């Protein structure tokens, strides 16, 4: 079996996090995160997850291929991700962990029903990846804040309204 592809992992991560590839690469954490997922779950699971993602993209592109440039039908893609990955006993918890890894910089232990069936590895326990991972958590960017203790925004910046793109404000007004 070949090692899970970094490019595919990145493509999956873009779809799961709604952050651009450049944002994800800009954290400097992408390689470390793929390594973490592989260490915690094993290559077979990771490869299957990446394949399922590729298949979901293919579903949404009308079966013509999985190239990122093919316009996706968003509703179909959402449905395919839910059916192929998020609702899958084996892949769902791993995909959710990949999201949390990007957002929090932390690997959360997989649920016990997952480890009972698919095996527990030492690396699967709740753990931080590196000291930088916390600082690169996407959560903070999503809410227009800095990770507490790092990337300080400057004196008095807190008196101004937060910088959050309008499309994320939903019904709530600022």
């Amino acid at each position, binding site marked *: 079996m070949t090692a899970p592809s970094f490019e595919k992992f990145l493509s999956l991560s873009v*779809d*799961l*996090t*709604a952050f651009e590839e450049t944002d994800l690469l800009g954290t400097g954490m992408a390689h470390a995160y793929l390594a973490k997922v592989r260490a915690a779950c094993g290559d077979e699971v990771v490869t299957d997850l990446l394949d399922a993602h590729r298949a979901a993209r293919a579903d949404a592109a009308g079966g013509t291929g999985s190239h990122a440039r093919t316009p996706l039908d968003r509703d179909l893609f959402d449905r395919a*991700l*839910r059916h192929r990955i*998020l609702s899958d006993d084996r892949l769902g918890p791993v*995909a*959710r962990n990949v*999201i*949390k890894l990007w*957002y*929090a910089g*932390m690997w*959360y232990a997989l649920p016990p029903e997952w480890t009972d069936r698919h095996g527990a590895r030492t690396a699967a326990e*709740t*753990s*931080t990846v*590196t*000291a*930088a991972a*916390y*600082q690169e958590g996407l*959560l*903070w960017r*999503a*809410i*227009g*804040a*800095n990770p*507490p*203790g*790092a990337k*300080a*925004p*400057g*004196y*008095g*910046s*807190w*008196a*101004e*309204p*937060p910088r*959050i793109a309008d*499309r*994320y*404000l*939903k019904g*709530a*007004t*600022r």
Partner: protein
Amino acid sequence: MYAKFPKGAAHRTDPGAAAEVLYDAVVVGGGISGALVALRLSEAGRKVLLLEAGPAEDLTLRGYERYLDRFYSAISKDNQAPYPAVANAPMPRGTDARRITPGAPDASSYIVQSGPFATDTTYTRVLGGTTMHWEGKALRMLPEDFRMRTLYGEGADWPLTYEDLAPYYSEAEREIGVSADVEDQAYLGIGFDEDYVFPMKGLPLSYLDRTVAKDVDGMPVDLDGEHRELRVRPFPQGRNGIPNPAYDGGRGYVPRGAVSAYQVEVGERCQGNNNCVPICPVQAKYNAGKTLALALQSGRVDLVAQAVAHKVHVDESTGRVTEIEYRRYDRPDSPGHTTMRARGRLFVLAANAVENPRLMLASGLRGSSGLMGRNFMDHAYLLAWALLPEVAGTFRGTICTGGITDLRGGRFRSRQAAFTVDIHNDGWGWARGAPMTDLIGLVDSGGRYGESLRQGLVDRVSRQLQLAFMVEVPADPSNRVTVSPDFTDELGNMRPVLSYNVPEYTMRGVAYARQLSRRIFARLGAEDHTAYDPEFWGYAVHDGEGYEIRGGNHLAGTHVMGREPSTSVVDADQRCWDHENLYMVGGGSMPTVGTSNVTLTLAALCLRSVRAMLAQLDSETAPIEVTTGRDQAATTSGETAP
């Protein structure tokens, strides 16, 4: 004039050599109390030995950065996360708290809790003490807080008045470097000298504070026939802001920088890291290391770290302290140690309101009043949390910039406890572990990913409002610190055993706080999400309603000061009635805690006590021969005012 990392600050005194010296003062504890005392005594030309229980790694930039790295890498980012856990000088941790089964003390962590109420109160045993993780709120107490018994028939009166302490408050504000504006802070009788300004200008309120203020300012509250209107008010902060050019009669103020060799981006103005607790990454927040660095620069302060005080030795005939026996461990990770002794003319216990009485009781010194360790106080925190109707950008700024202080005083205090209300810029972090718990909830059970996750996070996190009601706890002799030979640490020191219950008076204030939070949320149009979990370790029921009560780490009361030896442990100078050359300093001396975080007040008390210490040293010029006993003691009373 930056407080540059001084030559000599990294120098540690050899304990063997220190044992041969008779110091003017031996100070136990390298937190803010010990640092201020050491600084002032050394400035007056006195020779001081400072004993610190923890490893002393933080007086260098490298040491400080190790704390930061430990914090970044920690899974639990609680208020002790950056600091090394050392079994030889253990410290309590907020995550230790467990519900206590009646009759079965919880000895699973350093403080043995015999209940009935469990507390998560903590303190930090490293150089700099708990100011390493303090939030930095620097409120003065109200004049009425010093006269609670007389005015309201609750708690105790101090042997001091606000006016007595006011000049030392100003001095403490200089030492700490407080940012505030007098026009915001003169309320409920808090008086300032004419023309006084704080060293630095007040920090701006957060956008969240301003969002709350739009609706809360002017909210009427009637209590016990007194009408008041609430207002969101900025808190005075022990962190660097913009120096006020009008300070000190126009001489201005130069902020204290970081404890380091470099002044690149650290130690200057607050940058809004939102991480005052557990560690300010840039040392914009005051920590006692800044004061210690200056003290060590004098060359008259010797520091021995990894030195845990074991026993206070007293001359039985005079009551004078002869030496402090301490255990010096060689390595933080092994219990191997050497027993050493420290000798001085004066001894100053500055180890905090739990460790001070713990050491005295472990030395068999219960105090003739029987009050050693009694009247333990902290603040009881009640949290209430809601979602605002609009995005308020929660999680930005210092941890807390503003709050409501209008209910700190008033006639209602004859019936129920007063409180200060904090608006938490870190949202529901304290109450519910936000924002990580929100992230986990949205992903694991909310089915969110991608764009809908980003929307969900903004909707769920950026609208969070958490009010923290800091409710006063009056002195109660049955709330106490004791020791027992059944509970010892790695070095064989007896651990503190805490008995604590939240008084009814406080619970009446808590119940009122919850009512008021409902009114505030209704006025804001906010969705109240407050729910108190009966399984929570600090769950308390009052009048049929249950509440989650948390500790504030505002330790006080365990060696109260007073006018009479029969009703107090120390006098107004924090000198022990029973031991004329022993000072017990810090929050333990406070007879009431009022509704202000204790650090500024205990700093002011220490600065005031230094004058008595210097006067006593001046009057006791001859080397002390403890064996000469009573005659010597009779001629060495140090009561003379300077």
